[in-house]
């Protein structure tokens, strides 16, 4: 039982990181119909920005702040202007293919231009371990989980409580009516891309101490973020959190109780079950198809 609790807790830490990336995924999808295949690389790039900043002697907090600013500029503004805007009129698949190309370019650009070796990264939270009622808990796991959860809840309340957030939701639901109501649609869409970039930078901060900064670190992460988003419900931003946690916890339990070699298949199996029986996801609502 204590093993089970321990595994669940550390699974929740990993799952909350998946949730950050998955939330960015769903926000982009809702606001602009963009499926970002480079989502994993969007986490990898800020990690390397932080590595570079740390190498030049900056403290971690400053490095993180710089990576957020750069991420909003490059992964938010430049990505939207350079790739999504010109392709938007062609529909979904050209954007998907272009982001696949982008992910290959980013991965190999870092490999060729910086380093193919994994780069060490400092611990964000202390590596202290303490026991609560017989269950061993690491401060890192708790810190990661709390930080990620706070961030997700912040984004949620921003979307629900503020005028800007409401306007962004309106754009996501019906772009035409939103612009009739006087909402600045392009700006709201840009905000979504900026939030996605910030979430990616935060995920980079949390995931890199354990994964290390490597050019291909985003490969698995991006897929799992997508699976998590679908499992939770693609048109519901609360679904991303649920999906991320489900994937993280199930993965950890399966690795311990079934087989560590097939750990990466867990997200896939849950995903298959969900799309076969409830294609709109656990918290999602159905969308009609048109001729």
């Amino acid at each position: 039982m204590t093993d089970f609790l321990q595994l669940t807790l550390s699974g929740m830490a990993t799952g909350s990181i998946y949730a950050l990336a998955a939330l960015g995924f769903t926000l982009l999808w809702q606001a602009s119909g963009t499926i970002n295949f480079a989502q994993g690389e969007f986490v990898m790039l800020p990690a390397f920005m932080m590595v570079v900043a740390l190498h030049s002697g900056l403290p971690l907090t400053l490095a993180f702040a710089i990576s957020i600013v750069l991420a909003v500029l490059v992964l938010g503004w430049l990505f939207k202007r350079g790739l999504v805007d010109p392709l938007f009129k062609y529909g979904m698949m050209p954007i998907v293919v272009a982001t696949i190309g982008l992910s290959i370019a980013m991965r190999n650009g870092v490999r060729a231009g910086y380093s193919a070796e994994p780069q060490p990264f400092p611990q964000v939270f202390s590596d202290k371990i303490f026991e609560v009622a017989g269950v061993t808990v690491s401060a890192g796991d708790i810190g990661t989980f709390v930080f990620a959860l706070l961030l997700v809840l912040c984004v949620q309340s921003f979307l629900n409580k503020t005028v800007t957030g409401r306007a962004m939701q309106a754009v996501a639901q019906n772009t035409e009516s939103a612009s009739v109501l006087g909402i600045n649609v392009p700006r709201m869409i840009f905000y979504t891309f900026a939030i996605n970039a910030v979430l990616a930078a935060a995920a980079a901060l949390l995931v890199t101490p354990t994964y290390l900064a490597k050019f291909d670190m985003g490969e698995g992460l991006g897929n799992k973020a997508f699976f998590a988003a679908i499992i939770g419900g693609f048109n519901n931003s609360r679904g991303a959190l649920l999906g991320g946690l489900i994937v993280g916890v199930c993965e950890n339990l399966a690795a311990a109780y079934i087989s560590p070699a097939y750990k990466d298949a867990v997200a896939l199996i849950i995903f298959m079950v969900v799309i076969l029986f409830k294609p709109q996801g656990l918290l999602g609502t159905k969308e009609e198809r048109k001729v």
Partner: protein
Amino acid sequence: MKKLNLLFALAFLAALVVVPSFLKNYGIHIFTTWLVFIMATMGLNLTVGYAGQKSLGHAAFFGIGAYTVAVMLKAGFSFWLGLPVGASICFVVGLILGFPALRVQTIYLAFATLGFNTALWLVMRNEEWLTGGTFGINNIARPSLGGLSFDGNLAYYYLVLAFTLLLAVLLWGLLRSPWGKAFTALRDNPIRAESLGIDTRGYTLLSFAIGAAYAGIAGGLYASQVQFIDPALFTVGASIMMYLMVVVGGPGYFLGPVLGSAVGVVLPEWLRFAQAWYLFVFGAAVVLLMIWLPDGLLSIPDRLRARRASREASAARAAAAQSVAQGVKP
């Protein structure tokens, strides 16, 4: 125009027959790999380009074909049994994988097939009793037929060329048949196709199954060509690369895979010393291609033709307007 195309095709075929005999082993190896990937991506072009099903798990079928041939050769069976068995397994698995495609479309399907690829890769890596795990299978023999041995690199190249031509002719015939039209109807408007009485379920499954069988044959030939296979060849990354080859060449163009495989396999193999930079440029080029030429490289002639036609039409309109104006004035 038709005659010119035919002439060009014949010249290209002659080049495929003649050029490798002047090449060293490495050149022959690159040419053979090119043909193998043409076969695999021809199948993917049917699934993606003609039938419009977004499949991102094609390397899994390629792997099934390769491992079937390798395992059966090790167990003492003939290559000529292994190849059709591999293709049939791919056909059946392709049918089964087609079922999610009946429920979900586009991006969901892409991720379902991608997930299937991951699962199969895990099996290849972990089930050591069957696949040799990460060490793979080595010393895969090359086949012989009657008195003919395909042991030599050049001889094997001609065998692969024969298979490529055979599969190309079969695909050409399939696409010209009513089936081919049904596939494109499925891509262009599935609901209308259904209302016209096309069995969309059956054709969706078939497009997957036939595409998978093509990959299976290509995989089997590849195993015997390189004589050593391991799971690293059949990752999700390889599937995505195959998808990009189809898209870059021109999905729905019969010769798209020929061009796509050249860009996706021949060039990176040739520029191996600068692989990371090549892939960086390739990825960036895909982004630019999507922005300027979303229908692939082979759409350039069509585009030029369309532009010329519209220019001629507007010139004709202008001339007609002028003559009308002149007719009125005097």
